């Protein structure tokens, strides 16, 4: 955190000054470790074993916050008798289908709900990354469940957890993660001792956690701990994700993602969401509790925002205009399709996949097989110059004179040259004022897409074809200003917020959205950001002039709420758990919820409220159902449906690992997404043979002085000077073993590529002793590429493509490689080196053919 989010880290230091104990778990000793009380080195890819060890410690010693757990989690809920655990099936849960490599989740359901909930076709759900749509809420379950308040029933969630994590002992943690037993116990003691009525503990992760084939389950394990310890919905608690781009939260909420529409509404699927009602019911799940019962209003109001006057109740608000998914349309599948010549055109908008995405060669070969590419950026990045300056040009795999791709580089406006909102990592929207106009041809994305849309609509204006109706009926009349006709960002923000069609009055809350076409709402979770016609995200009341919650600085979704599920900061009767941790509580005299934050509960629903028999939706939530977006109102220790890889987290080895899974016969996540395309490969892992060809573990992350793929830092002289060169950190022991010299060169080889780096010999890397064998890990920064002031090989070239099954994010935080002293060969010799490794590792397939898309005639 001190490395990648230094200014956020000031709050950790602030807490430390007040007596908090800070633990840092990382494969490499970083600037965060230097400031922590205790540093725990870990083998990359084993976090579930570590966190599962904490779950085991809590349950074994009965250290859970029992009153919280009983009231607010599903610990007491009874699970189907058809369920079988990984402990019984050597690493599989019940319902696994080897044919589709996916689970039938029927047996995971709550008892009595086997036939009514869950997904029928898990592999189809995997292809559309269905897990992602649950970012703002839970997964469907029926609201009525069987419970055992004594937690003794053998099939209650509490007992299932106990059995599932029974073997995650301190000894197993040591064997699996390489963390000494004493250090593990120090962490376990501190975490549990600092949780409860009087205290809360926080878990902070950087989103490298998501870049694993079991990434979602990492975070799930953290959530289980925080629920067991009563750390959710309370001040100083939570599971905090440190996201890495200025508005990556915003670009998930208002998604430029294939499987989502704004506000986590799913992009319709061809077979599952045939009609508007199918689609809405798939979101709201009639019968379940919670606020998703408003899905029909959210959906209708979004379509009304898209298609304006053309969208009417009679035509289901033009639902038929939406494109339909049939499977995986994610970025990696798309890149493989580019290599195969199936994609004509590609837009890159402030993103540099030639350096930043896994398997750089696949990225660049994909771009080399397009008809056209549009790059919008501040600088000339590697993804714009792949045809001219790339490893493949050096090896002859891309020949400029034979590469058809037409490239447009259109300069972008910087963050100070346009106005608009970023959503930062706490869901807080902050409006940026424009300081000055962009130079020369540089324009905002708002300008580019508004005018591109305008021109396309003009060119299609005479069309009477069905396919062009969605384009021509689009509500695309934003006011513009200035010499370049810049669209009004504030007008777009008002549409995102939503308003009444008849009066233009901005909505104040998403509960005002209607399903009859009388409201427009571009993103329902953002409703309120333009309440009363005021840009709430532009609020800048100084921290000196308000309390510590700082509710008048910017605006947080939903409803300017700063801590989600904060009903849980009070006990079931609505009283604060303690004076010290008081946050939101029930004021009996005024008969309403009150506190420092906006209560995450119906304002006047008393703690004693019990729903009538059979009630659903918001009415179905009892006065102590704190987790109001969940179908049963509870925080989930056990996920009965919706996750691809199991209802409870299970330690699997990374897709590439030198170690046999110490816990189960099943080596890696059995549901991980794998692509069989010839450009892709996976280095062998036990129990496969040839694992000695790639014996070392490598992991990658950020430096303070650079940013992601380097497009905003390698081009900046101050930053380039601070971190001028690509390097690899190697422990003294490994340097000795391999004959690597400090400040000399080494090259690293995987089944995909070979890259070189300067050697930094340092005890920041610890050789790990596991089961009597030593595992060496090396670390590299992933910022380097061939353009800019400072250049170097890109470590993402070493990775293959294996994805988490829930969200289709690639495993790019851990892989295996070999390391040799000296610089890598160049040209044909470089290809020969990688081929030799591939042959020795028994990797099938060869390098992909260069497919040039069907150019009819080579133009002069």
């Amino acid at each position, binding site marked *: 955190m001190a490395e990648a989010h230094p*200014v956020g880290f000031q709050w950790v230091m602030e807490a430390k000054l007040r007596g908090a104990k800070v633990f840092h778990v990382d494969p490499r000793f970083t600037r965060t470790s230097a400031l922590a009380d205790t540093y725990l080195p870990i083998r990359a890819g084993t976090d579930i074993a570590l966190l599962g060890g904490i779950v085991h410690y809590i349950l074994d010693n009965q250290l859970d916050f029992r009153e919280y757990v009983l009231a607010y989690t599903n610990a007491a809920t009874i699970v189907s008798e058809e369920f079988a655990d990984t402990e019984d099936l050597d690493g599989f849960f019940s319902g696994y289908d080897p044919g589709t490599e996916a689970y039938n989740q029927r047996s995971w359901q709550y008892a009595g709900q086997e036939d009514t909930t869950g997904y029928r076709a898990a592999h189809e759900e995997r292809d559309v*990354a269905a897990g992602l749509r649950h970012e703002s809420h839970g997964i469907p379950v029926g609201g009525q469940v069987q419970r055992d308040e004594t937690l003794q029933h053998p099939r209650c969630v509490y007992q299932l957890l106990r059995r599932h994590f029974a073997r995650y002992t301190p000894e197993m943690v040591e064997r699996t993660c390489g963390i000494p037993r004493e250090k593990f116990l120090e962490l376990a003691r501190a975490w549990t001792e600092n949780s409860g009525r009087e205290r809360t503990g926080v878990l902070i992760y950087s989103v490298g956690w998501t870049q694993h084939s079991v990434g979602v389950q990492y975070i799930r394990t953290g959530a289980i701990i925080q629920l067991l310890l009563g750390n959710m919905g309370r001040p100083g608690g939570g599971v905090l994700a440190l996201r*890495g*781009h200025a*508005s*990556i939260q915003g*670009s998930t909420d208002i998604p*430029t*993602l294939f499987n989502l529409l*704004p506000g986590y509404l799913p992009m319709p699927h061809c077979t599952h969401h045939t009609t508007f009602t199918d689609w809405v019911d798939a979101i709201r799940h009639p019968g379940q509790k919670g606020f998703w019962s408003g899905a029909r209003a959210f959906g209708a109001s979004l379509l009304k*925002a898209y298609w304006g006057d053309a969208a009417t109740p009679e035509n289901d608000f033009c639902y*038929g205009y939406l494109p*339909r998914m049939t499977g995986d349309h994610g*970025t990696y599948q798309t890149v493989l399709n580019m290599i195969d010549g199936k*994609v*004509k055109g590609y*837009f*890159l*908008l*402030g*993103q540099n996949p030639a350096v930043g995405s896994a398997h750089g060669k696949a990225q660049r070969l994909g771009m080399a097989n397009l*008809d056209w590419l549009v790059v919008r950026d*501040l*600088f000339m990045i590697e993804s714009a110059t792949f*045809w001219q300056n790339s490893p493949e040009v050096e090896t002859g795999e891309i020949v400029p004179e034979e590469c058809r*791709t*037409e490239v*447009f*580089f259109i*300069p972008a406006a910087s*963050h*100070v040259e346009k106005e608009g909102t*970023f959503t*930062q*990592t706490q869901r*807080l929207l*902050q409006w*940026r004022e424009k*300081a000055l106009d962009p130079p*020369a*041809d*540089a324009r905002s*994305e*708002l300008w580019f*897409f*508004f005018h*591109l849309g305008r*021109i*396309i609509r003009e060119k299609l204006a005479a069309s009477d074809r069905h*396919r062009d109706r969605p384009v021509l009926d689009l509500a695309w009349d934003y006011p513009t200003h200035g010499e370049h006709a810049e669209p009004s960002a504030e007008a777009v923000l008002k549409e*995102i917020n939503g308003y009444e069609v008849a009066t233009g009055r901005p909505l104040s809350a998403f509960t005002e959205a209607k399903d009859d076409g009388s409201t427009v709402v571009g993103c329902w979770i953002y409703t309120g950001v333009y309440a009363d016609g005021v840009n709430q995200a532009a609020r*800048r009341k100084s*921290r000196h002039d308000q309390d510590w919650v700082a509710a008048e*600085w910017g605006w947080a979704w939903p409803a300017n709420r700063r801590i989600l599920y904060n009903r849980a900061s009070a006990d079931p009767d609505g009283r604060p758990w303690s004076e010290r941790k008081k946050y939101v509580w029930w004021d009996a005299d005024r008969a309403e919820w009150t506190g420092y934050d906006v209560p995450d509960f119906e304002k006047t629903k008393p703690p004693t409220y019990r729903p009538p028999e059979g009630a659903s939706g918001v009415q179905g939530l009892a006065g102590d159902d704190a987790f109001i977006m969940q179908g049963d109102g509870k925080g989930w220790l056990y996920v009965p449906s919706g996750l691809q890889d199991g209802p409870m987290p299970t330690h699997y080895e990374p897709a590439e690992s030198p170690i046999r899974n110490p816990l189960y016969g099943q080596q890696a996540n059995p549901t991980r997404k794998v692509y069989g395309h010839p450009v892709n490969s996976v280095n062998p892992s036990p129990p496969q043979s040839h694992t000695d060809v790639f014996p070392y573990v490598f992991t990658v992350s950020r430096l*303070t002085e650079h940013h992601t793929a380097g497009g*905003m830092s390698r081009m900046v002289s*101050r*930053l380039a000077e601070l971190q001028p060169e690509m390097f690899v950190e190697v422990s003294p022991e490994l340097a000795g073993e391999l004959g690597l010299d400090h400040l000399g060169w080494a090259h690293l080889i995987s089944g995909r590529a070979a890259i070189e780096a300067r050697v930094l010999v340092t005890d920041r890397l610890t050789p790990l002793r596991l089961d009597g064998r030593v595992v060496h890990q090396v670390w590299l920064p992933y910022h380097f590429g061939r353009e800019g002031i400072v250049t170097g090989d890109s470590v993402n070239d070493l990775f293959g493509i294996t994805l988490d099954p829930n969200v*289709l994010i690639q495993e790019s935080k851990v892989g295996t490689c070999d390391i040799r002293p000296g610089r890598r060969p160049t040209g044909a010799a470089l290809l020969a080196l990688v081929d030799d490794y591939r042959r020795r590792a028994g990797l099938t397939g060869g390098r992909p053919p260069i497919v040039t898309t069907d150019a009819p005639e080579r*133009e002069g």
Partner: protein
Amino acid sequence: MGVKTFIQGWPVYRQLTGTDPLGRGAAAQSARSAALTARTETADHMARSVCPYCAVGCGQRVFVKDGQVTQIEGDPDSPISRGRLCPKGSASKNLVTSPLRQTTVRYRRPYATEWEDLDLDTALDMIADRVIAAREATWEDADEDGRPLNRTLGIASLGGATLDNEENYLIKKLFTALGALQIENQARI
């Protein structure tokens, strides 16, 4: 210069006897530094902004004089950052004023070995034609069972995490109307 004046001119004397015991203000001032004026004071105007790098969301104050950014510094009012910026945030004036910034359109023809210049309006028009053509060539009305698809898999896009919400909103809205599904950003990576 008398001895007394001489001694009083020493920063250490001023630090020990004056109002600046930490030696970070008046005590450390020299005749030269006393005559300097901060760029923040001479700016024509200041815009309240947000750092463009990671997602912490540190407040920035952007100072502009004569149509140029002259200073970017942390916003002390921000409850998130309390005026601090990290090395990247502190370098963001360098980011926006860098001489390496590409400010004009560049165009690479198929099979070309060099870039060439292109007018922005022409480029936009050419891109619009290419979007229409790619959509035309790859359009899918319905699947083999006649169920509607309304889409093209011939156009893809990547990026958004560094952009504004309003920009992502228009990008998604336009591409959805065009039937382009393969719209992705860093959140998938």
